[in-house]
């Protein structure tokens, strides 16, 4: 076996965004020897990009709010495909997790009487998002990072995990490499928490950073975990579209929460034409009513600008396709004509800065141009709601790498709360599992050796394929064929394309050495991306309906049959995928009653 640097822990957390940090904190507090591993430097994970806020029914702004309303909004936003128990725990526990962040140092914006202020967001009945201007994710990651450091958790930064190790059918650890040297590292652990985030880098237009390559989704599949809802990919309605180099960078939903409105090229507020029947009863049908709603919840219904993200993204897509878009293929997002400049700069400082610096646009004077951008994976590893446990003993998960919480579409603000609610639960679950084991599971050194060989392969051989080229081709393939609007024939073309890229990926040639070599790192990530792209496409082919973050031209309506099932995808040891439909967990009657008015 190759020369591995070896470490042993009770609990190994992979990923140091909000979910991973919160999981590691919990595991450490419970007394388990805990380590956290991250691909980037500590504090740079994608959570840092979250802008608008963290959803929690604190009831600080509207006393009518409570966990039941939040639960109901979440389930309806997910088109009822959510794991009801996850959605319930999430709504019940989010307020405590927000207060805990405050205890650890987070400084949320305040109400007049000094409590945590909450802002409006899409799909939330009441103003519910605790926030710090429009840089809530930075506040959250720094707070958790400082808590983690204070607890003395071992941190392995700029270390990429490439495989999980198993002992029979249970987890035994993980292998990876230091990015700065290429040196191989082997972790032996009683439990592993996957908190690796998302997979947006598989699509061409994305809000995700280089890290979002679906590593955790792939690692889970290699280890035999069940994946659910992989067909549901959230295209956030508002990414930047111009200039080309910033295409996809996120524009917070907070712009609309704070009064911004979407317009097409003729200045029309087109969202009024896209109100789906499911939300008609609670959505304003005139501009006058929508504008009144910001100040008067009693007598006005909410603006259609704040419909759930899937609805808004489809509407923008339709406007652009109908030729009513903005000059650079998006639509206009206008807050300049609706709110005073000082208000905009105070509420949305980061958006102001971002447009000013990167696009030369002053958002207090002119509208932004925006369009959909691949943002979030609803699907992922199937986990137990209470503990974050997967079907593989010792393997836990939290955050975007898991599925179920958000159903077919996530509401804005429900991700940051998901991270801390289920990060804590997964950390607890993993710590309890580890505490119940006498010894670290046995090490199968052949698994580690196999990883070593596959990682070295791109340096050897006489292949000529460039990893950057293959990645770009995969992104274009998925953007065109498995994007916002899908059809059977397009997705079959995607599968053929993925197979072709997989074959070419065996001939990837990497130049240079093992020290901090991004080309080599991408070649390794590419394997994960191809696996995840195939799982997502196969799941999407299976779901013959349109729902949430999965819209099909050939099956444009929601189906009663598919309303009852998750699509589950598994990868066998030989690389073959199997896809099946499995019944959703049944919601208890007392929760079902919350939906009877629909």
């Amino acid at each position, binding site marked *: 076996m190759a020369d591995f640097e070896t470490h042993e822990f009770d609990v190994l957390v992979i990923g140091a965004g909000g979910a991973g940090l919160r999981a590691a904190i919990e595991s450490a507090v419970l007394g388990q020897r805990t380590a956290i591993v991250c691909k980037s430097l500590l504090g740079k994970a994608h959570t840092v990009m979250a802008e608008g806020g963290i959803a929690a029914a604190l009831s600080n702004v509207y006393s009518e709010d409570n966990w039941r309303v939040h639960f109901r909004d979440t389930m309806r936003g997910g088109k009822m495909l959510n794991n009801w128990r996850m959605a319930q725990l999430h709504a019940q526990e989010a307020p405590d997790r927000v*207060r805990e962040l405050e205890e650890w140092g987070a400084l949320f914006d305040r109400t007049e009487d000094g409590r945590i202020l909450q802002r409006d967001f899409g799909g939330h009945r009441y103003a519910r998002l605790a926030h710090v201007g429009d840089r809530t994710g930075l506040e959250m990651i720094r707070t958790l990072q400082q808590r983690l450091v204070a607890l003395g958790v071992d941190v392995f930064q700029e270390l990429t995990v490439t495989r999980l190790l198993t002992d029979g059918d249970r987890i035994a650890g993980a292998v990876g490499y230091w990015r700065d040297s290429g040196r191989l590292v082997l972790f032996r652990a009683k439990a592993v928490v996957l908190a690796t985030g998302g997979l947006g880098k598989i699509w061409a237009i994305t809000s995700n950073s280089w890290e979002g390559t679906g590593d955790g989704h792939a690692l889970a599949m290699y280890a035999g975990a069940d994946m659910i809802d992989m067909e549901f990919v959230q295209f956030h309605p508002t990414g930047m579209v111009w200039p080309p180099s910033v295409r996809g960078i996120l524009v917070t939903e907070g712009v609309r929460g704070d009064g911004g409105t979407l317009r097409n090229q003729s200045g029309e507020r087109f969202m009024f034409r896209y109100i789906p029947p499911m939300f008609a009863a609670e959505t304003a049908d005139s501009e006058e009513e929508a504008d009144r709603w910001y100040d008067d919840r009693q007598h006005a219904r909410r603006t259609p600008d704040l419909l759930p993200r899937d609805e808004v993204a489809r509407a923008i897509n339709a406007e652009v396709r109908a030729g009513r878009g903005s000059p650079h293929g998006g639509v206009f997002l206008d807050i300049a004509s609706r709110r005073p400049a000082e208000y905009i700069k105070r509420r949305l400082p980061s958006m102001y800065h971002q447009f000013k*610096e990167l696009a030369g646009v002053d958002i207090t004077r002119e509208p932004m141009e925006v369009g959909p951008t691949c943002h979030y994976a609803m699907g992922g590893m199937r986990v137990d709601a209470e503990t974050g446990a997967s079907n593989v003993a010792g393997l836990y998960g939290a955050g975007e790498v898991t599925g179920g919480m958000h159903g077919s579409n996530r509401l804005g603000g429900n991700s940051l709360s998901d991270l801390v609610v289920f990060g804590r639960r997964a950390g607890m679950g993993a710590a309890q599992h580890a505490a119940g084991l006498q010894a670290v599971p046995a090490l199968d050194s052949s698994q580690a050796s196999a990883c070593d060989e596959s990682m070295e392969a791109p340096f050897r051989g006489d292949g000529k394929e460039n990893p950057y080229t293959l990645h770009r081709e995969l992104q274009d393939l998925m953007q065109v064929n498995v994007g916002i609007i899908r059809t059977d024939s397009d997705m079959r073309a995607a599968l053929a394309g993925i197979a072709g890229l997989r074959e070419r990926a065996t001939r990837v040639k990497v130049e240079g050495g093992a020290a901090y070599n991004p080309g080599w790192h991408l070649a390794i990530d590419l394997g994960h991306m191809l696996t995840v792209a195939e799982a997502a496409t196969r799941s999407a082919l299976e779901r013959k309906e349109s729902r949430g973050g999965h819209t099909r031209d050939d099956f444009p309506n929601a189906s009663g049959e598919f309303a009852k099932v998750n699509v589950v995808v598994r990868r066998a040891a030989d690389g073959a995928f199997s896809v099946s439909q499995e019944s959703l967990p049944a919601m208890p009657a007392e929760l079902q009653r919350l939906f009877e008015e629909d």
Partner: protein
Amino acid sequence: MPTAHLRVWRGTDDGEYVEYEVEYDEGMVVLDVVHRLQATQTPDLAVRWNCKAGKCGSCSAEINGKPRLQCMQRMELYPEGETITLAPLKTFPIIRDLVTNVAWNYDQARAMPELRLRPADADGNRRMAQIDIDRGQEFHKCIECYICQDVCHVIRDHPENMAGFAGPRFFVQLASIAMHPLDTNTRRATVDHGFGLDYCNITKCCTDVCPEGIHITDNAIIPLKERRVDEFHDPLRIIARKLTGRG
């Protein structure tokens, strides 16, 4: 398509500048050009980045000798045809190309005191007026790009000072704790010896380069220095301490 003339540091301490020509598009930032160089000519070029929107602080480098975020420098800032020199941050050891080892900063982070808040109100809330946290929120804008650490001449020109000096980024963190309206740490914990605050002679180099516009010197460092003087160098207090035996 315009062409950028780049001079990029390649290798480690004994590396060298290598010149490249890269075509670029309207609206691109320096990091986009570096990525295009990577994808088309130098696949192993090491550069650290994440968000590409000025929010994560990963891609700091010295552009024409000035430390900047590569993702926030539009190519229009540089006259077409002139060579742009890209170097790693000077204050930290080079790992490779544009990537430096910033572990020293994480060592400083481990030495920071932890916030200790008063208990919450009976209803579970903590009440703080917005005006009392405005300053703290300014400090929390820090994206840990370490550009302020890089320009600070206390360590940039005197690496021997790194052992006893936390640097501007961590003075901001100390100030954030010291000024939290509900924190119960003593001033001894937040402004006492050990962080090297005295080395700073308020030349404001850090403030000038902060991409978040944090008033590091005026709002964090000077108030901390004042508190230090009050707490530890006020003759009356020294006498009082001697008499009471406290503090």
